[in-house]
């Protein structure tokens, strides 16, 4: 890895300033993606700006209707947080099956969504729950945030500060983990709020996406049986040594059904 200069600002303003002053700067959160990328020589920044010194990015708060998670909250913190577990067990358990314990102790929600790995778990939760991403500049709806593989709506130097999740009536996440990496081979997050249902799929395509046909069927009848016969076109799905596009397409259906069943148990049974 090439050397770089390192700084650890304690305010958001100082971090943004450090980034704009740098010729070639990069933010460091949990480092579980960016450090491996730098070791491979795929990134060689001159300035590394560590966000771990900014206290306001750590907080998790919850009201009856919204859970707000600071960008620097680690996966382990989210998994263990009573403020998340009580109202939204699906999100806490998603955080608790990301990677492995060591990755969860360092990796953050902000880093995960900024990176937008096509097999990452959090993007499915943000999209299915209709979360709002707050940055140092603005608010972005999850629907407008995840653009394409490793691409988001973030501008150069923009910092995610927190993610707000509206609390649904019922929700669940089902993941078929790649046995080697633990990333999602396919992951499906289902959320129902009143009569509105959202189904988001990660791992299967180049970027997280919603499945409109499933949402419409579940809005009529929130049961696993309502998904019988609904398929997702496989043309745009990922195919690699781990699974074919057809296999991934099949998993979407299986996992969506399981997610609906668990959501009914997790939720208030309405």
């Amino acid at each position: 890895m090439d050397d770089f200069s390192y700084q650890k600002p304690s305010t958001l303003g100082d971090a943004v300033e450090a980034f704009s002053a740098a010729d070639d700067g990069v933010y460091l959160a949990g480092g579980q993606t960016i450090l491996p990328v730098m070791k491979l020589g795929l990134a060689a920044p001159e300035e590394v700006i560590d966000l771990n010194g900014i206290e306001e990015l750590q907080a998790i708060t919850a009201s009856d209707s919204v859970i707000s998670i600071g960008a620097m909250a680690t996966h382990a913190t989210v998994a263990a947080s009573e403020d998340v577990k009580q109202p939204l067990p699906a999100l806490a358990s998603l955080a608790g099956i990301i990677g492995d314990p060591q990755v969860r102790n360092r990796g953050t929600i902000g880093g995960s969504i900024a990176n937008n790995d096509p097999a990452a778990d959090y993007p499915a939760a943000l999209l299915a729950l209709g979360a709002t991403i707050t940055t140092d500049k603005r608010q972005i709806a999850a629907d407008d945030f995840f653009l394409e593989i490793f691409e988001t709506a973030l501008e150069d130097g923009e910092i995610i500060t927190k993610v707000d999740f509206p609390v649904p009536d019922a929700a669940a996440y089902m993941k078929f983990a790649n046995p080697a990496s633990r990333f999602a081979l396919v992951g499906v997050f289902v959320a129902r709020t009143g009569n509105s249902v959202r189904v988001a799929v990660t791992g299967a395509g180049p970027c997280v996406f919603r499945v409109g046909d499933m949402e419409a069927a579940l809005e009529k009848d929130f049961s696993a049986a309502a998904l019988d016969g609904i398929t997702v076109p496989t043309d745009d799905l990922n195919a690699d040594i781990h699974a074919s596009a057809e296999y991934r397409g099949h998993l979407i259906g299986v996992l969506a059904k399981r997610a609906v069943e668990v959501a009914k148990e997790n939720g208030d049974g309405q």
Partner: protein
Amino acid sequence: MPKINLTVNNQSVTKEVEGRTLLVELIREGLGLTGTHIGCDTSQCGACVVHVNGQPVKSCTMLAVQADGADVLTVEGVSPDGGLSPLQQALHEHHGLQCGFCTPGMVMTATALLNDNPYPTEAEVRHGLEGNLCRCTGYQNIVEAIMAAAKEIRG
């Protein structure tokens, strides 16, 4: 070069490091504590696991400067006065290692697991070991050793 102060196995350490120095490099090369291994250097294998402020992390995936002010525990620090910890003893008795390359990381991960959860189920132990690869044992004896150590520590 940044100068950092940290505690390693209860001893305070002051070192100058480059920005790019990894925590595992500081531990092995800077401090000569070679019990912590480098298996993959790509964040996969867990041979390099140490505790930072009580939490297990992969020391190949953290910068040494990020450990400034932290309390670091390596495998050299878990055994009381040259003896074996109950977990190390259990790994020995249950044949929980063959070549031993993964063992320091296994010890650090399992020590943290048992600190957090003195009554783990076998499934919780296996979930807890997802970040530690072993190419020899097939895990079975490692899991048995951790379950036995849990019982021993509970008394």
